[in-house]
């Protein structure tokens, strides 16, 4: 027997590893042929390197020109990088999918010989017609490529950090982002070597409209460098050439210099100056702070810069400048800028952190997996693979859940165990989806997820009997709803799932909505207006993103609102961007090539690469090397964003799950004993002093003891009912002192609403929700809380 088992477990392990390998690449399973997958993820020198060479070579550039249609006068080579750039930005999801599939095919034919950017351009130009694109590419390949100059290497390294800005900047056609004068923008631009696109303008480099060039000391040497640089690239138009060279050089400088704000400023100046030196080639292409300038202002600026070109081109330049969304000014000093940027980004699409909660087996993962699939976040190939594999395990109904449940164990058991995080876009929102586990043993994980969320989707299993078990005492529906409310989630969409199992019965739906509506508004404390109901089916995908088609449902469900539409209606909360930076670490992991990363949600304030931060409670300082949102490097992340941050200057052992990264100017305090107001839920045994609890705060859970019961409060009015009660019974409210086993970083509720909440659990039940009122005792570490 035992032997048999051992064998089994060994096989299991092996299988596990095998699969693991696949999963780790699963993102790109669509291109499941390994070379292309590899090409996508392993960094390939051939791929993006050659821009510059293309740039200076008009013939090559001919091909890559998308914008030619728009403006014949464009110098084609200028538009190369831009078109690729803009194409990337503006592609709709469908187009993107087409592009991807074409790309893959093209790769198969052409191998790695052609840089991806060129491929992309050509494919788009040919309207996703594979044959045409390949033909064009093959003819083009005959053209000899210019020698690559050594400097480009560095640029390339930037290239890779890059695409971040793209999502926020809806550049229409513009190379403005690449203006050399702003380091940031350079970094964020997908293609390093940049010839400004507003290609109308012959001289490539554009000065920030608003500011006149100021000479700085630093600038002079740059200029020298630039002048030296001018020689290597040979291009037909001398003026252009020098402009390019200047831009190039400057960028290189920018790349080399650390990304601290003063330097940036300096560089900007240098950039400007350089342009001046080149001889009035420069024109306005504001990507500097001045980007927000009114159109007229811009226009005059542009004109002043001595543009060549006619009225129309100027206009286009101006236009191109106006919509720029992201001024990536790095200087933290200018808070206004940051706010402005935030509001702009906000205007683009609102960010929403959405957690999916509900009783175990309510179909949370399936619902969301299917939604992601419908919204195109999961491609068909992957889905097909999941279907096949889940069928093999005899769990074909779990295929959609596999989109989110990635670990082997979750899949084999058919239960979500840890929060899965992913991201999708709807018409109006960018949604960070947190798929919480429903099983009661994993409520700590669910708390972690919910504490990072703004809004919730409560999934209900409409099947007869199932709703009741989930909703009755001991079911997670109640507990999850209460937890979500206590953790600051204000709006909830109730997705009445598995309606197909009850034949889309209106009665059933109404029964559930009535019961739940009462519970959510009366007991859990949601406002009536903030609770909405949607009937749907995660498995069949009914009423998720597309209006319902099942006649039984259509018959009574009017007006038909789909889940996605409902999500679009949610209002994101006001985010505390003006507060000092805080980030509670929810994960620490290493990644090949980028040192070690921490993940978490920015609780307040904002963070940029290059910022100095303090890690509490270890009280270590570190520098933010990179900020990633959804695996894309960003130049700034605001409160509410789910980020990965690469840190440098600190050892990994000093950062744990639960550590807090904070602004050195106003660091968080670590506490071992806190006074808190708690609201006690329906508990079996009363709370006395000395009661051992598990303290859940953000992503941490720590043992703690209730040390003192200070007073019992009236639950509604907050008046003191009794001082020093002997015990606290269910459904009461009180002020208590809690002692933690070791120091944690907590925030007062009065300072940071979101970060001042915690939950207390004991024996597998949530017993109370609390707000931190005061830090009674904090053990100072060596550096103190400096």
């Amino acid at each position, binding site marked *: 027997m035992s032997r048999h088992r051992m064998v089994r477990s060994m096989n299991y392990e092996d299988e596990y590893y095998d699969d693991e390998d696949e999963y780790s*690449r699963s993102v790109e399973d669509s291109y499941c042929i390994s070379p292309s997958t590899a090409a996508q993820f392993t960094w390939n020198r051939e791929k993006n390197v050659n821009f510059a060479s293309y740039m200076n070579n008009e013939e090559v550039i001919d091909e890559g020109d998308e914008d030619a249609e728009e403006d014949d006068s464009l110098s084609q080579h200028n538009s190369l990088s831009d078109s690729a750039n803009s194409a990337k930005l503006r592609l709709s999801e469908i187009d993107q999918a087409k592009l991807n599939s074409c790309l893959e095919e093209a790769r198969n034919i052409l191998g790695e010989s052609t840089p991806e950017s060129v491929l992309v351009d050509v494919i788009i130009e040919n309207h996703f017609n594979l044959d045409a694109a390949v033909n064009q590419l093959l003819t083009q390949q005959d053209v000899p490529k210019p020698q690559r100059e050594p400097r480009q290497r560095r640029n390339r390294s930037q290239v890779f950090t890059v695409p971040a800005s793209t999502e926020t900047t809806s550049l229409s056609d513009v190379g403005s982002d690449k203006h050399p004068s702003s380091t940031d923008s350079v970094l964020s631009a997908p293609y390093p070597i940049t010839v400004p696109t507003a290609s109308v303008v012959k001289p490539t480099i554009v000065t920030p409209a608003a500011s006149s060039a100021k000479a700085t000391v630093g600038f002079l040497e740059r200029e020298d460098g630039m002048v030296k640089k001018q020689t290597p690239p040979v291009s037909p138009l001398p003026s252009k050439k020098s402009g390019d060279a200047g831009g190039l050089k400057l960028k290189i400088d920018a790349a080399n210099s650390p990304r601290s704000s003063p330097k940036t400023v300096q560089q900007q100046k240098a950039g400007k100056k350089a342009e001046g030196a080149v001889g009035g080639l420069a024109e306005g292409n504001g990507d500097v702070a001045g980007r927000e300038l009114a159109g007229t202002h811009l226009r005059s600026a542009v004109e002043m810069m001595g543009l060549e070109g006619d009225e129309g081109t100027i206009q286009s330049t101006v236009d191109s400048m106006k919509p720029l969304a992201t001024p990536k000014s790095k200087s933290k000093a200018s808070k206004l800028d940051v706010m402005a940027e935030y509001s702009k980004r906000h205007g683009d699409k609102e960010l929403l952190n959405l957690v999916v909660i509900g009783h175990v087996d309510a179909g949370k993962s399936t619902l969301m997996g299917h939604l992601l699939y419908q919204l195109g976040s999961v491609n068909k190939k992957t889905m097909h693979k999941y279907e096949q594999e889940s069928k093999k395990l005899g769990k074909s109904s779990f295929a959609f859940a596999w989109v989110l449940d990635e670990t082997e164990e979750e899949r084999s058991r058919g239960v979500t165990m840890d929060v899965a995080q992913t991201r999708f876009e709807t018409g109006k929102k960018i949604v960070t989806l947190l798929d919480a586990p429903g099983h009661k043993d994993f409520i700590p994980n669910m708390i972690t997820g919910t504490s990072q969320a703004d809004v919730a989707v409560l999934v209900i299993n409409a099947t007869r009997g199932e709703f009741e078990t989930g909703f009755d005492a001991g079911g997670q529906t109640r507990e999850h709803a209460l937890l979500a409310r206590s953790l600051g989630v204000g709006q909830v969409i109730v997705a009445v799932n598995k309606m197909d199992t009850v034949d889309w019965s209106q009665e059933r739906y109404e029964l559930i909505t009535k019961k739940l509506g009462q519970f959510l508004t009366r007991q859990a404390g949601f406002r009536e207006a903030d609770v909405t109901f949607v009937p749907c089916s995660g498995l069949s995908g009914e009423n998720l993103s597309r209006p319902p088609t099942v006649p039984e449902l259509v018959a009574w469900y009017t007006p038909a609102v789909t889940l996605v539409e409902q999500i679009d209606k949610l209002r994101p909360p006001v985010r505390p961007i003006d507060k000092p930076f805080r980030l509670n670490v929810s994960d620490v992991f290493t990644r090949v090539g980028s040192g070690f990363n921490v993940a978490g949600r920015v609780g307040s304030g904002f963070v940029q690469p290059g910022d100095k931060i303090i890690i509490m409670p270890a009280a270590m300082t570190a520098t933010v090397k990179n900020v990633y949102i959804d695996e894309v490097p960003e130049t700034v992340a605001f409160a509410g964003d789910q980020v990965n941050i690469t840190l440098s200057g600190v050892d990994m052992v000093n950062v744990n799950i639960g550590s807090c990264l904070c602004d050195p100017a106003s660091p968080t305090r670590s506490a071992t004993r806190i006074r808190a107001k708690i609201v006690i839920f329906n508990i079996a045994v009363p709370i006395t002093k000395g009661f051992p609890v598990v303290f859940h705060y953000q992503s941490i859970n720590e043992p703690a003891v209730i040390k003192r019961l200070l007073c019992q409060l009236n639950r509604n009015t907050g008046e003191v009912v009794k001082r020093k009660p002997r015990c606290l019974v269910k459904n009461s409210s009180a002020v208590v002192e809690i002692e933690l086993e070791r120091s944690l970083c907590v925030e007062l509720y009065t300072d940071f609403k979101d970060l001042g909440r915690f939950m207390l659990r004991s024996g597998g039940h949530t017993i109370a929700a609390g707000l931190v009122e005061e830090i009674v005792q904090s053990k100072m570490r060596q550096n103190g809380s400096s």
Partner: protein
Amino acid sequence: MKLLHRDMDKTNSGSVTLIPEESEDMWHAYNLVAVGDTIRSTTIRKVQTESATGSVNVSKVRTTLTIQVEGIDFDTQACVLRVSGRNISENQYVKMGAYHTLLLEMNRQFTLNKQEWDSITLERIDQACDPAQHADLVAIVMQEGIAHLCLITPSMTLVRAKIETSIPRKRKGLCDQHTKGLHRFYNQIIQAFQRHVNFDIVKCVLIASPGFVKDHFTDYLFAEALKMDDKTIIENRSKFVLVHSSSGFKHALKEVLADPAITARLSDTKAAGEVKALDDFYTMLQTDPDRAYYGVRHCERAVENQAIEILLVSDELFRSQDISQRKRYVSLVDSVRENGGDVRIFSSLHVSGEQLGQLSGVAAILRFPMPEEDEEEEDENDSDDD
């Protein structure tokens, strides 16, 4: 523990001679010895002799000393009891009044003399010398990233290893890091397990966790044992019991021991009984708060009214250095017994005892409800808990 000799007069003063036989007995001894007692045992003493010529000779001699106790120190990890004090019987090596620290060892007899043996201490001796088999068990309470390896004896819960690792979460495309982290964590537990668990003594191994961690770990443990060719683990497979717990923290042991499946298996374990009693207390507090009292003043008042049915006391209180404090608790216990009440003395080393200790150390379930009088003792209570 073996009781060799007992000599007590009417006033309950006198001496007993005991031989501790296992580490658990050290804990009992720790609870018996109080400041002011005299204790006699063999020990090793470094002796300096000066010859006529003035040369100094240092030698270690084994000698028997009697000291008057001034300090007691119990090391839970090594289960060693150190008693320090002044010598009160001069011999050829050690002068009168010289300080010495006795290290009470297993299997070496000692004689303890007290001015007054109270009921608690006498009961403790009886209990310690009870030859009934003790069920020793090992419990591993774990959750992802945290594990406690505890050795549970009738009157002690000893944390032998606390393992804490951060495990990267699952993350798109990086699931293998999670798995690796998990395996690293399991390996650490297995190492601790091999180091601390002796299957000659241990009757049962409890593996408790929320979710599937326990199953996963057990599978991993046996797979590893097979790989490492660790026979003891494989042969003792039947001793492993999987239990559910709500978290991996130490106090979750309470739930583990309260699990009916476990209590059946370890019927005579004191720890499980204590957990049950404390749970009863809390249930009473919920259903009828006037019948559940805690805090020494409240309990004393209840005793006056002969109201106490079950008294829960932490043995910590009897180790009090302050004789009058100690007497107060002893008389509390005695009067409850006189009135036909039941007294449970909790070991402060168990989780439940720890919790009781936080709850002022004494609690009672009453026979009939007594309305509480307010506010009088709060200050004292507060001072207790700091």
